[in-house]
């Protein structure tokens, strides 16, 4: 039985268990008392907060019920925030304003006093390393904590050097050009890499181990070897979703998974604060998947990774807490509860199939608002779309969030719209009263419960379909996920065309005139592209003597089955990204594209 079949059964079993507890709470006197006591204690322990208007509110919003069955359904079926199965939230407290809060009657409240983390992530990447570095400094000048999220240009994403024939136009477009370890030093220059209020996220997959190795090497150059254990951040590294949707995979699947596992093994041992993989539904959804498909394929991929890491001999309670997730949030109604369902299914699967403890059961989520939902026509309407999506994401208790810039459909985001997008989050969290006073203010509406159940059924039915094909990897061979996503994408386009799906400003209330402004588009100037190539050539010249030896050491590690990531940290000292991928291609081949 594939892990996915076991997970499906575990969820069904768990749902039955919840119903049994509901029945028991209604019929078994002793159990009822237990439930009621737990509930009263929970309610009483909640702190009180005073709003600026003088209103006194509990720190946590709980259903108003004293019916033991319903209490059991809540406690077991969705759980208090921070409690299994984590439907309401991964943690007890999120987004709550700490400053100026009136202390509750009980200082040892179950809600605790966890310092809330800034959930806003700032995504940037353009030109050469200094250009992005400047953007990072501009964006973070007023931030309490620094959370940088990095986009790479096309050649980097495909593991090619900037001097590769035919890629000149792509250098520094849509992301930053990184060819070598020096670029990585320049990219994060001036930032305190080992600081606990600093983290980076790198959106790269196919060559992820090489790029992370460059980051580690660059950090060591600046701060010495002891920095490694303090590095904090995320590298996307999600190979399975690349095969299913995003197409940025460069080595064959098996080799890619081996390099990934090597990286996970290394970081769980030596970089305890690092997230070596961000299991991503975002690109699956952007490629056209329905929200249910997004959730199902992402979770299924996650369980597949867990299986793989377990087979390598990694301990689930060590790697489990280092897995994180990345979902799209669009405007479809499923998004009212999608992340809530994901948290539950992940927790049940990890606990009951993989035997994970609480920290390893958490579906820690980064959300990005939907890029696909944005349009170029009357693009300022995108500000509204993104705001609604942000609200849905926070209702779903996302752990961090990125909001898209309104001008993204037609350009690399300009500073003006990047700032507006980040501000939207601050407005929602800090200006409105919706999130800063109470946990779970908007959770648990009747509509949300219905969406939860429907989405869960949909996800389980996708699990069954994948399992029937023999699991995630076998389903990939059958092109199952790809063809499902493509069919959904085609349906979506047809719906826009025939008006079933209404897009304001596009197929409804369309302004006859194209209101797109004359743009000052952010493009990388030719001289910057030349500069990148010149630097790369210089690097290659300077390291000519050592490069060959370094590549041979890498090749030996690949062939002998050693940990490739540990070796890469050394290889990147002398070799460029393209030199490394070229050698690895010789050893393991190329990924064969699927259509």
């Amino acid at each position: 039985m594939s892990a996915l079949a076991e997970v499906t059964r575990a969820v069904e079993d768990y749902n039955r268990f919840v119903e049994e507890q509901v029945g028991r709470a209604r019929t078994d006197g002793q159990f009822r008392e237990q439930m009621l006591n737990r509930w009263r204690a929970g309610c009483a322990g909640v702190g009180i907060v005073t709003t600026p208007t003088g209103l006194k509110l509990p720190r946590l919003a709980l259903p108003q019920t004293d019916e033991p069955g319903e209490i059991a359904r809540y406690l077991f079926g969705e759980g208090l925030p921070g409690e299994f199965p984590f439907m309401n939230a991964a943690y007890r407290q999120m987004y709550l304003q700490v400053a100026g809060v009136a202390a509750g009657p009980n200082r040892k409240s179950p809600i605790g006093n966890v310092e809330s983390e800034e959930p806003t992530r700032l995504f940037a990447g353009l030109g050469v390393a200094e250009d992005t570095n400047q953007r990072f400094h501009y964006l973070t000048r007023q931030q309490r904590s620094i959370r940088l999220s990095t986009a790479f240009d096309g050649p980097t994403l495909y593991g090619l050097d900037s001097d590769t024939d035919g890629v000149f136009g792509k250098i520094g477009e849509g992301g930053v050009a990184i060819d070598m370890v020096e670029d990585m030093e320049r990219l994060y220059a001036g930032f305190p890499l080992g600081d606990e209020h600093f983290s980076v996220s790198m959106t790269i997959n196919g060559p992820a181990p090489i790029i992370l190795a460059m980051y580690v090497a660059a950090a060591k150059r600046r701060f010495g070897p002891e920095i490694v254990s303090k590095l904090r951040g995320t590298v996307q590294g999600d190979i399975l979703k690349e095969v299913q949707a995003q197409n940025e995979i460069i080595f064959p699947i098996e080799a890619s998974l081996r390099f990934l596992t090597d990286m996970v093994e290394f970081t769980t041992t030596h970089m305890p604060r690092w997230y070596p993989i961000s299991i991503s539904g975002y690109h699956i959804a952007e490629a056209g998947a329905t929200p249910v498909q997004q959730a199902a394929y992402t979770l299924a991929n996650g369980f597949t990774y867990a299986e793989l890491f377990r087979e390598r001999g990694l301990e689930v309670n060590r790697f489990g807490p280092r897995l994180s997730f990345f979902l799209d949030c669009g405007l479809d109604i499923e998004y009212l509860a999608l992340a809530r369902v994901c948290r539950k299914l992940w927790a049940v699967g990890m606990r009951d199939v993989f035997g994970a403890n609480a920290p390893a059961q958490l579906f820690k989520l980064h959300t990005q608002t939907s890029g696909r939902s944005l349009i170029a026509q009357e693009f300022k309407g995108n500000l509204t779309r993104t705001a609604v999506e942000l609200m849905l994401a926070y209702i779903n208790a996302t752990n961090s969030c990125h909001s898209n810039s309104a001008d993204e459909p037609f350009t690399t985001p300009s500073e003006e719209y990047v700032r507006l997008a980040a501000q939207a989050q601050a407005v929602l969290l800090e200006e409105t009263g919706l999130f800063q006073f109470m946990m779970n203010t908007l959770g648990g509406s009747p509509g949300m419960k219905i969406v939860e159940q429907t989405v869960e059924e949909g996800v389980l039915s996708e699990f069954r379909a994948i399992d029937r094909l023999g699991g995630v990897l076998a389903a990939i061979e059958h092109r199952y996920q790809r063809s499902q996503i493509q069919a959904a994408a085609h349906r979506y386009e047809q719906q826009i065309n025939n008006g079933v799906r209404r897009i304001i400003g596009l197929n409804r209330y369309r302004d006859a005139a194209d209101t797109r402004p004359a743009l000052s588009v952010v493009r990388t100037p030719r001289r910057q592209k030349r500069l990148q190539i010149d630097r790369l050539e210089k690097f290659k010249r300077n390291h000519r003597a050592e490069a060959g030896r370094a590549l041979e050491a890498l090749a030996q590690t690949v062939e002998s089955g050693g940990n490739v990531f540990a070796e890469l940290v050394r290889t990147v000292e002398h070799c460029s990204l393209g030199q490394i991928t070229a050698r690895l291609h010789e050893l393991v081949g190329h990924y064969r594209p699927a259509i």
Partner: protein
Amino acid sequence: MKTTTARRQGGSAPRSRAGIHPPPARKRHQASGSPVRILTAVPICDGHDSAINTINLELIHHGIEVIYLGYHRSARDIARAAIQEDARAIGISSYNGGHVEFFGEVIEFLKKNGAGDIGVFGGGGGTITPADARLLAKKGVDRIFSAGTRLAEIVEFVKTRYGAPGIPTASRTTILTDRRLAKLLTVAELNVRGSRFEVRGSAKPSRVVGITGPGGAGKTTLIDELAMRFLRSDPKARVAILSHDPSLAGQGALLGDRATMIYSQDDRVFMRSLATRGQAGGLSPATKRCLQVLKPSGFDLVLVETVGIGQEAMPFGRELINQTVLVMSPDYGSRLQLQKIVMLQEADVVVVNKSDLAGAKTAAAEIEQYLVLNHRGQKLISTVAKRHRDPGVDELFRWLGS
């Protein structure tokens, strides 16, 4: 993946003297009723294939034959493929920036190879600004579709702009470039009345290997791996691939074999994709004529891939094919009984691909027994074509060369 050796020679077709007898220009021919053929692709360092997949589907449902080259393809690969396929136009879907340079490069390559008449159009959602679009128009791009374009508008454009029946002509130059060979193949495919298709070359006839088997058995992967071994074994070797994909009933076709190929995107490989255009059995009505053109054109090897088909009949006649390879996957058992597989009796080599799957050993043993009873000296080879440096594919390659 890229070779530069053939650049100066203008493509993969070897220099050989070739003759063709095109009809007088005014004579009526059958081109007017044949589908429009265009090629679509996504540029290098770009994996955004969602839009192009949707557009491809829409186009083929409206009678257009789309040769899809896939994503992350260089300007050179795209131009080469369009020339070899004699496509009327190239549609490029670009979302990762650098489009001004990229479209320009494609057009340059086309012009340099005497194929400036192949149209170029494209789109990139909002990433291509109106100013870019104007710039691209100056460079010779026929049309840039902006975000929010209706699919129907794209279909209409392709049909009206590229649908006018052109007179297939083949120039009388004697250098057999990709461009010229492609034109000869178009004449052959359209069966232009009054034309004969032989190429009078000094080259000795190529060895032609026919590869068939059910869909999903891995034929295309196997061909790509064989082509790679062939190219590497001899720095001058040239390969031609004639591939087939099914036409939708009365409609267009998605010719997608090129999209999954890695090593065959090479100046020393000439590939042509044919739609079956209503013919059953895995080949096109034009296959034979196309082979008559390819065989004497000086290739060292010609590989013919059929549509993924049932196994009730052997699609190849013996006159033009030297060797036949049947590619199977080990899970045939649930679907077919060996006794019913006519091709097992006919094929020179039977390849059990995906032999890493459970049950592969049993399958190979069963087939082996069957072949022994045939007493025809047929060869059985187990492969895992998707595996890098697979020894089974090496063995097949050696056998084909022997």
